[in-house]
Protein backbone atom coordinates (compact mmCIF):
# COMPACT_ATOMS: atom_id res chain seq x y z
CA UNK A 1 0.00 0.00 0.00
CA UNK A 2 1.24 3.47 -0.88
CA UNK A 3 2.76 5.05 2.23
CA UNK A 4 2.09 8.56 3.48
CA UNK A 5 5.30 10.56 3.18
CA UNK A 6 7.17 12.57 5.80
CA UNK A 7 9.25 15.31 4.21
CA UNK A 8 11.71 17.51 6.09
CA UNK A 9 12.26 20.80 4.29
CA UNK A 10 15.60 22.58 4.36
CA UNK A 11 15.77 26.25 3.47
CA UNK A 12 19.15 27.07 2.00
CA UNK A 13 20.89 30.43 1.93
CA UNK A 14 24.41 30.67 0.52
CA UNK A 15 24.80 26.91 0.91
CA UNK A 16 23.67 26.78 4.55
CA UNK A 17 20.44 25.50 6.10
CA UNK A 18 18.16 28.10 7.56
CA UNK A 19 14.59 28.18 8.80
CA UNK A 20 12.63 31.36 9.05
CA UNK A 21 9.80 31.71 11.51
CA UNK A 22 7.04 33.07 9.26
CA UNK A 23 9.87 33.55 6.73
CA UNK A 24 11.68 36.27 8.73
CA UNK A 25 14.28 36.17 11.52
CA UNK A 26 16.34 33.56 9.73
CA UNK A 27 18.62 31.45 11.91
CA UNK A 28 21.19 28.90 10.72
CA UNK A 29 20.68 25.30 11.78
CA UNK A 30 23.35 23.32 9.97
CA UNK A 31 25.03 21.85 6.93
CA UNK A 32 22.43 20.75 4.35
CA UNK A 33 24.22 17.62 3.20
CA UNK A 34 24.90 16.40 6.71
CA UNK A 35 21.38 17.17 7.85
CA UNK A 36 19.86 15.59 4.72
CA UNK A 37 21.85 12.38 5.17
CA UNK A 38 20.83 12.21 8.83
CA UNK A 39 17.15 12.56 7.90
CA UNK A 40 17.47 9.90 5.18
CA UNK A 41 19.01 7.50 7.68
CA UNK A 42 16.24 8.24 10.18
CA UNK A 43 13.53 7.33 7.68
CA UNK A 44 12.58 10.59 5.97
CA UNK A 45 10.77 9.64 2.76
CA UNK A 46 11.90 12.60 0.73
CA UNK A 47 13.61 15.92 1.24
CA UNK A 48 12.93 19.38 -0.09
CA UNK A 49 15.73 21.91 -0.46
CA UNK A 50 14.53 25.44 -1.05
CA UNK A 51 17.09 27.97 -2.17
CA UNK A 52 16.21 31.32 -0.69
CA UNK A 53 19.35 32.97 -2.02
CA UNK A 54 18.57 35.74 -4.44
CA UNK A 55 22.02 36.43 -5.90
CA UNK A 56 23.60 34.94 -8.99
CA UNK A 57 26.63 33.75 -6.97
CA UNK A 58 24.32 32.09 -4.48
CA UNK A 59 22.54 30.24 -7.30
CA UNK A 60 25.79 28.73 -8.52
CA UNK A 61 26.60 27.66 -4.96
CA UNK A 62 23.19 25.98 -4.83
CA UNK A 63 23.79 23.94 -8.00
CA UNK A 64 27.09 22.73 -6.53
CA UNK A 65 25.29 21.88 -3.32
CA UNK A 66 22.66 19.89 -5.24
CA UNK A 67 25.46 17.79 -6.77
CA UNK A 68 26.80 16.99 -3.30
CA UNK A 69 23.32 16.14 -2.01
CA UNK A 70 22.74 13.81 -4.97
CA UNK A 71 25.99 11.98 -4.30
CA UNK A 72 25.24 11.43 -0.62
CA UNK A 73 21.50 10.76 -0.45
CA UNK A 74 19.72 7.52 -1.34
CA UNK A 75 16.21 8.96 -1.18
CA UNK A 76 14.46 11.36 -3.58
CA UNK A 77 14.72 15.10 -3.19
CA UNK A 78 13.04 18.15 -4.64
CA UNK A 79 14.73 21.48 -5.15
CA UNK A 80 13.09 24.82 -5.50
CA UNK A 81 13.63 28.52 -5.23
CA UNK A 82 14.35 30.95 -8.02
CA UNK A 83 13.53 28.58 -10.89
CA UNK A 84 12.03 30.73 -13.62
CA UNK A 85 13.23 29.16 -16.87
CA UNK A 86 13.66 25.73 -18.40
CA UNK A 87 17.42 26.04 -18.22
CA UNK A 88 17.34 26.67 -14.45
CA UNK A 89 15.39 23.44 -14.03
CA UNK A 90 17.65 21.62 -16.46
CA UNK A 91 20.79 22.64 -14.51
CA UNK A 92 19.26 21.35 -11.28
CA UNK A 93 18.05 18.09 -12.81
CA UNK A 94 21.48 17.53 -14.35
CA UNK A 95 23.00 18.19 -10.93
CA UNK A 96 20.92 15.27 -9.64
CA UNK A 97 17.64 16.71 -8.34
CA UNK A 98 14.69 14.33 -8.68
CA UNK A 99 12.03 17.01 -8.92
CA UNK A 100 11.91 20.74 -9.16
CA UNK A 101 9.45 23.01 -7.48
CA UNK A 102 8.22 26.26 -8.99
CA UNK A 103 6.25 28.88 -7.12
CA UNK A 104 6.20 32.64 -7.85
CA UNK A 105 7.53 32.17 -11.37
CA UNK A 106 4.56 29.90 -12.22
CA UNK A 107 2.10 32.48 -10.87
CA UNK A 108 3.71 35.16 -13.04
CA UNK A 109 3.99 32.87 -16.06
CA UNK A 110 1.58 29.91 -15.76
CA UNK A 111 2.77 28.59 -19.10
CA UNK A 112 6.02 27.64 -17.36
CA UNK A 113 4.18 24.65 -15.81
CA UNK A 114 3.14 23.40 -19.29
CA UNK A 115 6.65 23.89 -20.65
CA UNK A 116 8.32 22.11 -17.74
CA UNK A 117 5.83 19.24 -17.84
CA UNK A 118 6.30 18.79 -21.58
CA UNK A 119 10.05 18.96 -21.33
CA UNK A 120 10.73 16.90 -18.21
CA UNK A 121 7.44 15.06 -17.58
CA UNK A 122 4.78 15.92 -15.02
CA UNK A 123 6.43 13.74 -12.40
CA UNK A 124 9.28 16.23 -12.15
CA UNK A 125 7.21 19.34 -11.72
CA UNK A 126 5.99 20.28 -8.27
CA UNK A 127 3.96 23.47 -8.13
CA UNK A 128 4.36 25.14 -4.77
CA UNK A 129 1.62 27.49 -3.62
CA UNK A 130 1.90 29.85 -0.66
CA UNK A 131 -1.54 31.09 0.27
CA UNK A 132 -3.11 33.23 2.93
CA UNK A 133 -6.69 33.84 3.98
CA UNK A 134 -7.60 37.49 3.30
CA UNK A 135 -11.12 38.23 4.60
CA UNK A 136 -12.30 34.72 3.85
CA UNK A 137 -10.66 34.44 0.45
CA UNK A 138 -7.72 32.06 0.21
CA UNK A 139 -5.31 34.13 -1.84
CA UNK A 140 -2.13 33.01 -3.58
CA UNK A 141 0.90 35.00 -2.48
CA UNK A 142 4.33 35.38 -4.07
CA UNK A 143 7.82 36.31 -2.94
CA UNK A 144 7.82 34.09 0.12
CA UNK A 145 4.31 35.04 1.17
CA UNK A 146 4.94 38.78 1.11
CA UNK A 147 2.85 39.84 -1.89
CA UNK A 148 -0.80 38.83 -2.41
CA UNK A 149 -1.91 38.20 -5.99
CA UNK A 150 -5.33 38.24 -7.63
CA UNK A 151 -5.36 34.44 -7.79
CA UNK A 152 -7.52 32.28 -5.58
CA UNK A 153 -5.89 29.20 -4.02
CA UNK A 154 -8.22 26.41 -5.18
CA UNK A 155 -8.70 27.58 -8.74
CA UNK A 156 -4.94 28.08 -9.09
CA UNK A 157 -4.24 24.58 -7.72
CA UNK A 158 -6.70 23.13 -10.25
CA UNK A 159 -5.18 25.18 -13.07
CA UNK A 160 -1.68 23.99 -12.12
CA UNK A 161 -2.92 20.39 -12.26
CA UNK A 162 -4.53 20.97 -15.66
CA UNK A 163 -1.33 22.53 -16.96
CA UNK A 164 0.65 19.42 -16.03
CA UNK A 165 1.93 19.80 -12.47
CA UNK A 166 2.71 16.40 -10.97
CA UNK A 167 2.22 17.46 -7.35
CA UNK A 168 1.04 20.48 -5.39
CA UNK A 169 3.00 21.67 -2.37
CA UNK A 170 0.55 23.84 -0.45
CA UNK A 171 1.85 26.09 2.33
CA UNK A 172 -0.67 27.96 4.41
CA UNK A 173 1.00 31.21 5.39
CA UNK A 174 -1.58 31.53 8.16
CA UNK A 175 -0.36 28.28 9.70
CA UNK A 176 3.34 28.41 8.84
CA UNK A 177 5.47 28.88 11.94
CA UNK A 178 2.53 28.69 14.36
CA UNK A 179 2.97 25.01 15.35
CA UNK A 180 -0.81 24.83 15.78
CA UNK A 181 -1.42 22.20 13.11
CA UNK A 182 -1.83 22.09 9.34
CA UNK A 183 -4.63 23.80 7.36
CA UNK A 184 -6.69 20.61 7.35
CA UNK A 185 -9.98 22.11 6.17
CA UNK A 186 -8.35 23.69 3.12
CA UNK A 187 -6.27 20.58 2.49
CA UNK A 188 -9.34 18.33 2.54
CA UNK A 189 -11.01 20.63 0.04
CA UNK A 190 -7.94 20.66 -2.18
CA UNK A 191 -7.32 16.89 -2.10
CA UNK A 192 -11.00 16.34 -2.86
CA UNK A 193 -10.68 18.49 -6.00
CA UNK A 194 -7.37 17.32 -7.41
CA UNK A 195 -6.22 14.08 -9.01
CA UNK A 196 -2.55 14.67 -8.22
CA UNK A 197 -0.82 14.28 -4.84
CA UNK A 198 -0.82 17.17 -2.37
CA UNK A 199 2.05 17.86 0.02
CA UNK A 200 0.87 19.75 3.10
CA UNK A 201 3.11 22.40 4.60
CA UNK A 202 2.85 24.92 7.41
CA UNK A 203 1.83 24.47 11.00
CA UNK A 204 3.37 21.16 12.14
CA UNK A 205 4.04 21.30 15.87
CA UNK A 206 3.30 17.79 17.14
CA UNK A 207 2.94 14.18 16.03
CA UNK A 208 -0.86 14.52 16.31
CA UNK A 209 -0.71 17.27 13.69
CA UNK A 210 0.76 14.77 11.22
CA UNK A 211 -1.93 12.22 12.05
CA UNK A 212 -4.57 14.89 11.46
CA UNK A 213 -3.11 16.10 8.17
CA UNK A 214 -3.37 12.54 6.83
CA UNK A 215 -6.77 11.64 8.32
CA UNK A 216 -8.57 15.02 8.26
CA UNK A 217 -6.65 16.79 5.49
CA UNK A 218 -6.21 13.64 3.31
CA UNK A 219 -2.75 14.92 2.40
CA UNK A 220 -0.39 12.57 0.59
CA UNK A 221 2.65 13.94 2.37
CA UNK A 222 3.40 16.16 5.34
CA UNK A 223 6.26 18.62 5.20
CA UNK A 224 7.92 20.40 8.11
CA UNK A 225 11.18 22.11 8.94
CA UNK A 226 11.90 23.52 12.38
CA UNK A 227 10.36 20.71 14.44
CA UNK A 228 12.79 18.32 12.76
CA UNK A 229 15.77 20.69 12.70
CA UNK A 230 15.43 21.52 16.39
CA UNK A 231 14.76 17.83 17.18
CA UNK A 232 11.40 18.50 18.74
CA UNK A 233 10.06 15.45 16.88
CA UNK A 234 12.24 12.55 15.76
CA UNK A 235 11.27 10.90 12.48
CA UNK A 236 11.47 7.31 13.84
CA UNK A 237 9.14 8.26 16.75
CA UNK A 238 6.77 10.00 14.35
CA UNK A 239 6.62 6.95 12.07
CA UNK A 240 5.90 4.66 15.02
CA UNK A 241 3.19 7.01 16.25
CA UNK A 242 1.51 7.17 12.83
CA UNK A 243 1.72 3.40 12.38
CA UNK A 244 0.07 2.92 15.79
CA UNK A 245 -2.68 5.25 14.60
CA UNK A 246 -3.44 3.10 11.57
CA UNK A 247 -1.63 5.24 9.00
CA UNK A 248 0.51 3.46 6.39
CA UNK A 249 4.09 4.67 6.61
CA UNK A 250 7.34 3.19 5.42
Amino acid at each position, binding site marked *: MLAKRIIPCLDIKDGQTVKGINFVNIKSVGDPVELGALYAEQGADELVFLDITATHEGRKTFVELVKRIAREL*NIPFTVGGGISELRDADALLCAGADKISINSSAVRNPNLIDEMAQHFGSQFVVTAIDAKNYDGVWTVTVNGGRIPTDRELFSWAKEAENRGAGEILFTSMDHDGTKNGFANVELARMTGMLKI*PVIASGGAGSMQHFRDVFTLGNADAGLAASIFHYREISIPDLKTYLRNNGITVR
Partner: protein
Amino acid sequence: MDVVIIKYNAGNIESVRNALARLGVDACITGDHARIRAADRVIFPGVGEAATTMAYLKREGLDLLLPRLTQPVLGICLGLQLMCSYSEEGDTPCLGIFDERVQRFRPAPDREHADKVPHIGWNNIARLRSPLFDGMADDGYVYFVHSYYAATGEHTAAVTDYIVPFSAALHRDNFYATQFHPEKSGTVGAKILSNFLKL
Protein backbone atom coordinates in the same frame (compact mmCIF):
# COMPACT_ATOMS: atom_id res chain seq x y z
CA MET B 1 33.66 -4.44 -12.69
CA ASP B 2 32.83 -2.56 -15.89
CA VAL B 3 29.33 -1.12 -15.51
CA VAL B 4 27.82 0.98 -18.26
CA ILE B 5 24.80 3.26 -17.94
CA ILE B 6 23.18 3.89 -21.31
CA LYS B 7 23.24 7.53 -22.24
CA TYR B 8 19.90 9.13 -22.88
CA ASN B 9 18.58 12.24 -24.50
CA ALA B 10 17.10 13.50 -21.25
CA GLY B 11 16.76 12.73 -17.64
CA ASN B 12 18.33 12.28 -14.32
CA ILE B 13 20.77 9.45 -14.91
CA GLU B 14 23.48 10.83 -12.64
CA SER B 15 21.50 9.50 -9.70
CA VAL B 16 22.05 5.93 -10.92
CA ARG B 17 25.76 6.59 -11.19
CA ASN B 18 25.77 8.14 -7.72
CA ALA B 19 24.02 5.07 -6.26
CA LEU B 20 26.60 2.76 -7.86
CA ALA B 21 29.40 4.99 -6.55
CA ARG B 22 28.00 4.51 -3.05
CA LEU B 23 28.45 0.76 -3.68
CA GLY B 24 32.05 1.36 -4.74
CA VAL B 25 31.48 1.03 -8.50
CA ASP B 26 32.55 3.75 -10.90
CA ALA B 27 30.06 3.41 -13.76
CA CYS B 28 30.46 4.95 -17.18
CA ILE B 29 27.63 6.78 -18.94
CA THR B 30 27.87 6.13 -22.67
CA GLY B 31 25.93 5.55 -25.86
CA ASP B 32 28.87 3.89 -27.60
CA HIS B 33 27.86 0.47 -28.96
CA ALA B 34 31.26 -1.17 -28.52
CA ARG B 35 31.53 0.03 -24.91
CA ILE B 36 28.02 -1.19 -24.16
CA ARG B 37 28.62 -4.63 -25.74
CA ALA B 38 31.88 -5.09 -23.81
CA ALA B 39 30.50 -4.12 -20.38
CA ASP B 40 30.00 -6.64 -17.56
CA ARG B 41 26.72 -4.98 -16.60
CA VAL B 42 24.45 -2.63 -18.52
CA ILE B 43 21.97 -0.30 -16.87
CA PHE B 44 19.18 1.15 -18.97
CA PRO B 45 17.72 3.96 -16.86
CA GLY B 46 14.79 5.97 -17.92
CA VAL B 47 13.19 9.23 -17.44
CA GLY B 48 10.99 10.92 -19.98
CA GLU B 49 8.30 10.09 -22.46
CA ALA B 50 8.06 6.73 -24.26
CA ALA B 51 7.61 7.79 -27.92
CA THR B 52 10.35 10.45 -27.84
CA THR B 53 12.74 8.12 -26.11
CA MET B 54 12.07 5.20 -28.48
CA ALA B 55 12.68 7.55 -31.41
CA TYR B 56 16.00 8.49 -29.84
CA LEU B 57 16.97 4.85 -29.31
CA LYS B 58 16.19 4.15 -32.98
CA ARG B 59 18.26 7.09 -34.18
CA GLU B 60 21.17 5.78 -32.14
CA GLY B 61 20.66 2.17 -33.25
CA LEU B 62 20.20 1.19 -29.61
CA ASP B 63 16.83 -0.45 -30.37
CA LEU B 64 18.70 -3.21 -32.20
CA LEU B 65 21.64 -3.43 -29.83
CA LEU B 66 19.78 -3.68 -26.52
CA PRO B 67 17.72 -6.86 -27.12
CA ARG B 68 20.86 -8.67 -28.30
CA LEU B 69 22.95 -8.04 -25.21
CA THR B 70 23.99 -11.16 -23.35
CA GLN B 71 25.37 -9.76 -20.07
CA PRO B 72 22.99 -8.85 -17.21
CA VAL B 73 20.95 -5.77 -18.18
CA LEU B 74 18.87 -3.74 -15.72
CA GLY B 75 16.12 -1.43 -16.95
CA ILE B 76 14.80 1.19 -14.53
CA CYS B 77 11.41 2.98 -14.66
CA LEU B 78 10.90 4.08 -18.29
CA GLY B 79 13.71 1.60 -19.06
CA LEU B 80 11.39 -1.21 -17.90
CA GLN B 81 8.52 0.17 -19.96
CA LEU B 82 10.60 0.44 -23.13
CA MET B 83 11.79 -3.16 -22.67
CA CYS B 84 8.14 -4.28 -22.93
CA SER B 85 6.33 -4.98 -26.20
CA TYR B 86 4.21 -1.85 -26.40
CA SER B 87 3.44 1.35 -24.51
CA GLU B 88 0.16 3.16 -24.60
CA GLU B 89 2.14 6.38 -23.99
CA GLY B 90 2.36 7.91 -27.47
CA ASP B 91 1.06 4.59 -28.94
CA THR B 92 4.62 3.29 -29.04
CA PRO B 93 5.90 -0.12 -30.15
CA CYS B 94 8.80 -0.87 -27.79
CA LEU B 95 11.78 -3.23 -27.64
CA GLY B 96 9.81 -6.43 -27.01
CA ILE B 97 12.29 -7.99 -24.58
CA PHE B 98 9.32 -8.68 -22.31
CA ASP B 99 5.89 -9.59 -23.70
CA GLU B 100 4.08 -7.43 -21.17
CA ARG B 101 2.26 -4.29 -22.32
CA VAL B 102 2.39 -0.84 -20.75
CA GLN B 103 -0.71 1.19 -20.03
CA ARG B 104 -1.79 4.24 -18.09
CA PHE B 105 -3.20 4.00 -14.57
CA ARG B 106 -6.95 4.51 -14.75
CA PRO B 107 -8.61 5.06 -11.40
CA ALA B 108 -12.32 4.27 -11.18
CA PRO B 109 -14.41 7.44 -11.69
CA ASP B 110 -15.37 7.57 -7.99
CA ARG B 111 -11.75 7.01 -6.89
CA GLU B 112 -10.01 9.76 -8.91
CA HIS B 113 -9.25 11.90 -5.88
CA ALA B 114 -8.01 8.95 -3.84
CA ASP B 115 -6.05 6.97 -6.45
CA LYS B 116 -3.75 9.70 -7.70
CA VAL B 117 -1.81 9.55 -10.93
CA PRO B 118 1.19 9.70 -11.08
CA HIS B 119 1.83 6.99 -8.52
CA ILE B 120 4.42 8.85 -6.46
CA GLY B 121 6.06 7.60 -3.31
CA TRP B 122 7.00 4.51 -1.37
CA ASN B 123 5.07 1.31 -1.93
CA ASN B 124 5.82 -2.32 -1.12
CA ILE B 125 6.88 -5.10 -3.44
CA ALA B 126 5.66 -8.69 -3.03
CA ARG B 127 5.74 -12.08 -4.78
CA LEU B 128 9.47 -11.58 -5.31
CA ARG B 129 10.76 -14.00 -7.90
CA SER B 130 14.22 -13.07 -9.12
CA PRO B 131 17.84 -13.19 -7.94
CA LEU B 132 17.57 -9.37 -7.86
CA PHE B 133 15.73 -9.82 -4.57
CA ASP B 134 18.03 -12.41 -2.98
CA GLY B 135 18.04 -12.13 0.79
CA MET B 136 14.98 -9.88 0.82
CA ALA B 137 11.58 -10.49 2.40
CA ASP B 138 8.26 -9.53 0.79
CA ASP B 139 6.77 -6.10 1.47
CA GLY B 140 9.93 -4.01 1.51
CA TYR B 141 9.31 -0.38 0.53
CA VAL B 142 10.74 1.09 -2.68
CA TYR B 143 10.28 4.44 -4.40
CA PHE B 144 8.01 4.86 -7.44
CA VAL B 145 7.29 7.82 -9.74
CA HIS B 146 5.22 6.87 -12.79
CA SER B 147 1.90 7.22 -14.57
CA TYR B 148 2.20 4.13 -16.77
CA TYR B 149 2.71 0.54 -15.68
CA ALA B 150 3.45 -2.89 -17.13
CA ALA B 151 0.68 -5.41 -16.59
CA THR B 152 1.53 -8.63 -14.79
CA GLY B 153 2.56 -11.56 -16.96
CA GLU B 154 4.89 -14.50 -17.20
CA HIS B 155 8.00 -12.32 -16.71
CA THR B 156 6.70 -10.56 -13.60
CA ALA B 157 9.35 -10.77 -10.89
CA ALA B 158 7.69 -8.56 -8.25
CA VAL B 159 4.18 -7.20 -7.83
CA THR B 160 2.97 -3.93 -6.37
CA ASP B 161 -0.68 -3.14 -5.87
CA TYR B 162 -1.71 0.39 -6.84
CA ILE B 163 -5.13 0.72 -8.44
CA VAL B 164 -4.31 -2.66 -10.00
CA PRO B 165 -1.60 -5.23 -9.25
CA PHE B 166 1.21 -4.43 -11.70
CA SER B 167 4.75 -5.57 -12.51
CA ALA B 168 7.08 -3.78 -10.09
CA ALA B 169 9.87 -5.87 -11.63
CA LEU B 170 10.34 -8.09 -14.68
CA HIS B 171 12.92 -10.77 -15.43
CA ARG B 172 13.68 -12.87 -18.47
CA ASP B 173 17.03 -14.60 -19.01
CA ASN B 174 19.75 -11.92 -18.65
CA PHE B 175 17.22 -9.06 -18.68
CA TYR B 176 16.01 -7.50 -15.44
CA ALA B 177 13.91 -4.40 -14.90
CA THR B 178 12.32 -2.47 -12.07
CA GLN B 179 9.48 0.03 -12.34
CA PHE B 180 10.67 1.63 -9.09
CA HIS B 181 13.92 3.51 -8.63
CA PRO B 182 16.41 1.31 -6.73
CA GLU B 183 18.87 4.23 -6.81
CA LYS B 184 16.41 6.25 -4.73
CA SER B 185 15.02 3.47 -2.56
CA GLY B 186 17.23 3.77 0.50
CA THR B 187 18.93 0.65 1.83
CA VAL B 188 16.40 -1.69 0.14
CA GLY B 189 17.29 -0.20 -3.24
CA ALA B 190 21.00 -0.39 -2.53
CA LYS B 191 20.59 -4.12 -1.77
CA ILE B 192 18.82 -4.66 -5.13
CA LEU B 193 21.59 -2.86 -7.05
CA SER B 194 24.19 -4.81 -5.13
CA ASN B 195 22.38 -8.08 -6.02
CA PHE B 196 22.40 -7.02 -9.68
CA LEU B 197 26.16 -6.50 -9.54
CA LYS B 198 26.58 -9.98 -8.01
CA LEU B 199 24.51 -11.87 -10.64
